[in-house]
């Protein structure tokens, strides 16, 4: 039996019942379209989260103080005071995998410019912070190391702050604003950074020299955070280990005691988010997979009906010389053709649906080749799996009885 003949026979049989074949296909079409669309949406959100996190500075490493006290009252991380200038100097001296370091402190408060006022955060950093974050100036100049040394009362403002403190068209450079009663001179405006992965407005900030914020506002010698950047993305892990070792030595921590600081890399953040969106993707895929199984059962149901209904045809084919295997293959190929054709239509429909979602709802989507391939494979397997038993039943018919079947 030639395979071309088998395909021909199966195709003719589907054609003879094209409406029913289409309705059977519908289950598969919806299933596959759902799989493609769901995976694309899942992958799209995963990718967009990843790129947002990388946008924060992909090589960035964050060092925060943490409590190593077990039991008893444990305090909030920002109130733990373990990171000092000594640590910074130790890091600067010994660093190999790090190319930039900036300590940081934060202070929330009201900022005032004449009639305007706005509640925002003042962040104290040193000039290397801008390299670490990959954050460029829009207008004006950055503060210098000299400004840090002198605890100069200068600042840079984010665009949200600019919008809230100045009327349209006014950039505010050279103006003096007051934060917690202390006047600061604006020397520059930062470029727009947008929202971070948590939905926080990164432009709602005033950046000032670290020493200024420490001494004049917070009256502290401690740092709340130290930002560092690894020399390149591959060095992130090494850099994190390096930081941990240097700080443990600097803090004179005994072996076996916990760190009194935490080192977080972007990779960890990315992993956390990837895990979340992976869960989402799995969930969506499972739902879509269930609809494929339902589609498969639809095929099985119709194939059973078809075998019963075409008993006489099967008897005829056998009397004309069809072997059991020919009948089995005919029905199996019919089932696979229905599922594969449904799969093709489903893929087209799924891609269309994905594009529509992107276009109308502005959701990030990503159509992956693997999702298309997997859908096809699943369709094929569904066809074979759910088509096999009806086909086997057909091939086992006794030609004499089948011919007499009414």
């Amino acid at each position, binding site marked *: *039996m*030639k395979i*071309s*003949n088998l395909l*021909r*026979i199966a195709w*003719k049989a589907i*054609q*003879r019942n094209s409406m029913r074949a289409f309705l059977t296909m519908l289950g598969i079409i919806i299933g596959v379209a759902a799989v493609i669309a769901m995976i694309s949406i899942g992958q799209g959100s995963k990718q967009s989260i990843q790129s947002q996190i990388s946008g924060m500075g992909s090589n960035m490493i964050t060092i925060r103080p943490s409590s190593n006290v077990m039991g008893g009252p444990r305090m909030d991380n920002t109130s733990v005071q373990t990171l000092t200038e000594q640590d910074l100097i130790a890091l600067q001296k010994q660093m190999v995998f790090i190319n930039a370091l900036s300590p940081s402190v934060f202070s929330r408060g009201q900022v005032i410019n004449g009639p305007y006022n706005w509640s925002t955060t003042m962040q104290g950093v040193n000039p290397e912070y801008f390299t670490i974050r990959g954050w460029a100036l829009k207008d004006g100049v950055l503060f210098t190391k000299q400004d840090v040394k002198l605890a100069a009362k200068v600042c840079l403002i984010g665009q949200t702050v600019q919008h809230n403190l100045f009327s349209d068209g006014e950039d505010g450079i050279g103006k003096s604003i007051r934060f917690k009663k202390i006047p600061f001179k604006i020397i520059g405006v930062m470029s727009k950074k947008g929202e971070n992965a948590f939905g926080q407005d990164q432009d709602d900030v005033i950046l000032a020299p670290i020493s200024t914020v420490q001494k004049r506002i917070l009256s502290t010698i401690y740092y709340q955070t130290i930002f560092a950047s690894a020399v390149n993305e591959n060095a992130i892990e090494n850099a994190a280990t390096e930081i941990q070792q240097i700080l443990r030595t600097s803090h004179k921590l005994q072996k076996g005691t916990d760190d009194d600081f935490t080192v977080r890399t972007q990779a960890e953040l990315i992993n956390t988010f990837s895990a979340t969106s992976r869960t989402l993707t799995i969930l969506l895929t499972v739902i879509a997979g269930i609809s494929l199984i339902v589609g498969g059962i639809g095929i099985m149901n119709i194939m059973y009906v078809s075998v019963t209904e075409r008993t*006489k*045809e099967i008897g*005829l*084919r*056998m*009397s*004309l*010389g*069809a*072997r*059991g*295997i*020919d009948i089995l293959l005919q029905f199996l190929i019919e089932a696979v053709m229905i599922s594969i054709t449904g799969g093709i239509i489903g893929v087209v429909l799924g891609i269309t649906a994905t594009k529509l979602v992107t276009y109308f709802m502005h959701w990030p989507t990503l159509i992956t080749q693997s999702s298309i391939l997997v859908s096809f494979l699943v369709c094929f397997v569904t066809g074979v799996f759910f088509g096999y038993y009806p086909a086997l039943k057909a091939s086992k018919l006794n*030609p*004499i009885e089948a*011919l007499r079947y009414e």
Partner: protein
Amino acid sequence: MDSILVEIKNLSREFKMGDETVRALNDISFTIKSGEFITIMGSSGSGKTTLLNILGCLDKPTSGAYFLDRINVGALSKNELAKLRNKKLGFIFQSYNLLARTTALENVELPLLYNSEISSKERREKAMNALEAVNLSDRIHYLPNQLSGGQQQRVAIARALVNDPIVILADEATGNLDSRTSYGIMMLMQELNAVHGKTIVFITHEPDIASFSKRTILLRDGKVINDTINDRIRSAKTVLQNMPINTELASILK
């Protein structure tokens, strides 16, 4: 052309119905030579259908032997039987058994699809020739529901001819047709037998139909009770010519 195509020797076929054993065929023997036109007659329950199933290689005897073209059918596997049916036999059924929503040509091509030695070009050619042999060349793309009963049966006959079988087996092939159309079919059978030298085994319960054949085997209760050469063969063509002509027959008689 006197070679023996079918040889049945002491053949019996039993069926188990619960505790009882029913003997559908009881120790029958006969031979069929090439070029014969035989009718097998008998009332219902006489074993006609069982005999046809065995002759058609759809069933095997319980005891005794059946040789088709010197091949011992009883010793063959299911798949070998299927191959034998495909190459050596042509079936014609009472209810035509054409595939619905399938053109006459495709219906006739059907047996050849199960023969991998035949190319699609050959298949088409053979099917066209077979349809020409039954005078349906002008109806090749018609669907069964666009054809009359007689025409449908002629498509079925073309399908039985297409693989160039050594024996054509017809099971009550005129059973669903009115007498005029039946004569038309018998005329075609006589023509296939006389002109194309086809060996035909025609199962019927109508003595009227049997009178067109060369030999009649009469079955009763699973035994051959009469096997006679018909010395007064009627010509279906003559019978038809003596009947009022209608349009469908006109096309056959042309």
